[in-house]
């Protein structure tokens, strides 16, 4: 029972991290129609900026602004220099260009920082455990990550649903040409949205830093999962990204924790472990395939 609670919380924490990444990616795709494979690189760059700031200058509390500034600036620069030329192109050119960006960023990190993974320390304030229920201690840091995720999700909801900027974003993801025809400066809007997505990716990167190690390739791993999230949720929809992130985060965490255990009810130990590991890894893809077969445009298709 305690294990189940712990895993549910872990799942929730993963879901909220995935949501930070998915929100940016789904907006960029939904509004600008760009497949940005380099979104994972922004996550990686945020984590590296944070880890370097923390170890070289000092402290986790400096890491967060460093990551946000780095990811945001690189994101805006990326939009102005590269992504902007890709709006009118087909998906193939976008895939090719952003694949090139991934290679470039990985190369730069390998050259400038090295290939060895970096470790990032948790802030002392958050390194303990908090007893969230009698006999159920849970790492304070993970709770803080969840707290930030919830705050960002609420903030994003407020911006999208209640502000003029959000109105333009929603309108843009439904009918891009119409928004532009109504006299909105669509170029600035795109830069802003892309920068916002980069900021969120950087935030996710720096928050995950102390939980997992910071290394090259961390972006690509999470990128695929994030794509799964936005496809399950329906591309372009923030609500879809949230529901998708919850579904995928929970399935992944619970699958990894319980699939071998459940299989042991019928199979022998080592076989169940092997099969369980495979099943846990493919769980999210299985969910995505099932969702797409039943609903080919995801759970909450935008503009549908």
């Amino acid at each position: 029972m305690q294990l189940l609670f712990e895993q549910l919380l872990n799942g929730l924490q993963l879901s909220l991290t995935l949501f930070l990444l998915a929100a940016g990616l789904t907006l960029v795709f939904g509004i600008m129609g760009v497949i940005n494979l380099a979104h994972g690189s922004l996550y990686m760059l945020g984590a590296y900026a944070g880890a370097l700031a923390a170890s070289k200058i000092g402290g986790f509390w400096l890491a967060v602004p460093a990551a946000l500034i780095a990811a945001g600036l690189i994101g805006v620069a990326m939009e102005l220099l590269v992504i902007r030329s890709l709006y009118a192109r087909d998906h193939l050119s976008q895939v090719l260009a952003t694949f090139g960006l991934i290679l470039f960023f990985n190369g730069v990190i390998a050259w400038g920082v090295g290939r060895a993974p970096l470790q990032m320390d948790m802030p002392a304030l958050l390194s303990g455990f908090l007893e969230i229920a009698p006999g159920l201690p849970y790492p304070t840091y993970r709770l803080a990550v969840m707290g930030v995720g919830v705050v960002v999700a609420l903030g994003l909801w407020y911006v999208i649903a209640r502000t003029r900027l959000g109105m333009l974003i929603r309108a843009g993801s439904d009918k891009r040409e119409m928004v532009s025809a109504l006299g909105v400066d669509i170029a600035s809007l795109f830069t802003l949205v892309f920068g916002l997505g980069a900021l969120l990716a950087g935030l996710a990167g720096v928050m995950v830093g102390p939980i997992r190690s910071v290394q090259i390739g961390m972006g690509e791993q999470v990128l695929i999962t994030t794509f799964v999230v936005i496809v399950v949720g329906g591309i372009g929809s923030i609500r879809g990204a949230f529901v998708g992130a919850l579904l995928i985060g929970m399935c992944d965490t619970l699958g990894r924790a319980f699939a071998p255990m459940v299989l042991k009810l019928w199979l022998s130990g080592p076989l169940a472990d092997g099969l369980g590991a495979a099943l846990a890894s493919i769980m999210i893809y299985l969910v995505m395939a099932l969702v797409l077969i039943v609903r080919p445009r995801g759970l909450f298709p935008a503009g549908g």
Partner: protein
Amino acid sequence: MAINRQIVAGLLIAACLLAVPFAAPYLGGNYVITLATRVVIFAIAASSLDLLIGRGALVSFGHAAYFGLGGYVVGICAFHLANDVTIFGWAGSNEALVVWPLAMLVSGFAALVIGALSLRTSGVYFIMITLAFAQMIYFVFVALKYYGGDDGLAMTSRNLFAGTRITNAQTFYWISLCALALCLLIQWRLVVSRFGMALRGAASNERRMAALGFSVYGYRLVAFVIAGMMAGLAGALWANLNRFVSPDMLGWVRSGEFMVMVIMGGVSSLLGPVIGAAAFLLVETALAGWTEHWQIAFGPFVLLVALFAPRGIWGLLRGRAGP
């Protein structure tokens, strides 16, 4: 004009590929032949992917699955033969003429199942669902500890080809080159046939083709299976070249590389993917020999091709004329 350039370019590429074994002794010996073999094998995989991306407008992001499955069929057959363990009552085999067609059959069957499900979706969703299925196969092989899991599966020797050993780098190069020529020939015949017309018609306007009475789904599924079988052959050759198979063959990075080769070379052209595979491997090898941090230069190279050569390198060579 366009046709002339196309023929000239084709002859030039063929001449280069044919000259490799003769020029190799002056250029660095077996190293060069092995590099050329890698180019040829990747060219088979990339051109099979172009049948989907270019002709069918079906952007499959999971093509490495069929490549890797083909490789694993070869690896697993050799594994059972070497360890004297039967598989489904069969002792395994080391004969290329048995194992390679089997690899193509297995890859083709996987493509049939995956294609049948994936082709219900379209656009980005198609990209993602093909990726999802490829990732599933990837993780299954990572978890298959019996066949090496993450570490992969080494083969003690290459397959025999009609009973003869093909350890010689030149012999293996000629076999791979013949396979490439055969695949390109089949694709060329397919593209100009009624089947190819229907496939291309469905790519440019699916509804119109359906209204004309064509079963778009059926044509696409057949193309998917053919492409999968060709990728399986490439995988079987790749396993033989390296005498090693690992889940990396199936991973999404490999699928991405195949896509990059196709797009960089130029979609919807017989020779584009061949040029793309060559450009990809040669530039990568040249940069990697020059600096350990070759990705810093290779990334922008890929980016520049995407930004300034939307029809790929082939499009640049061919010029503006022609469809």
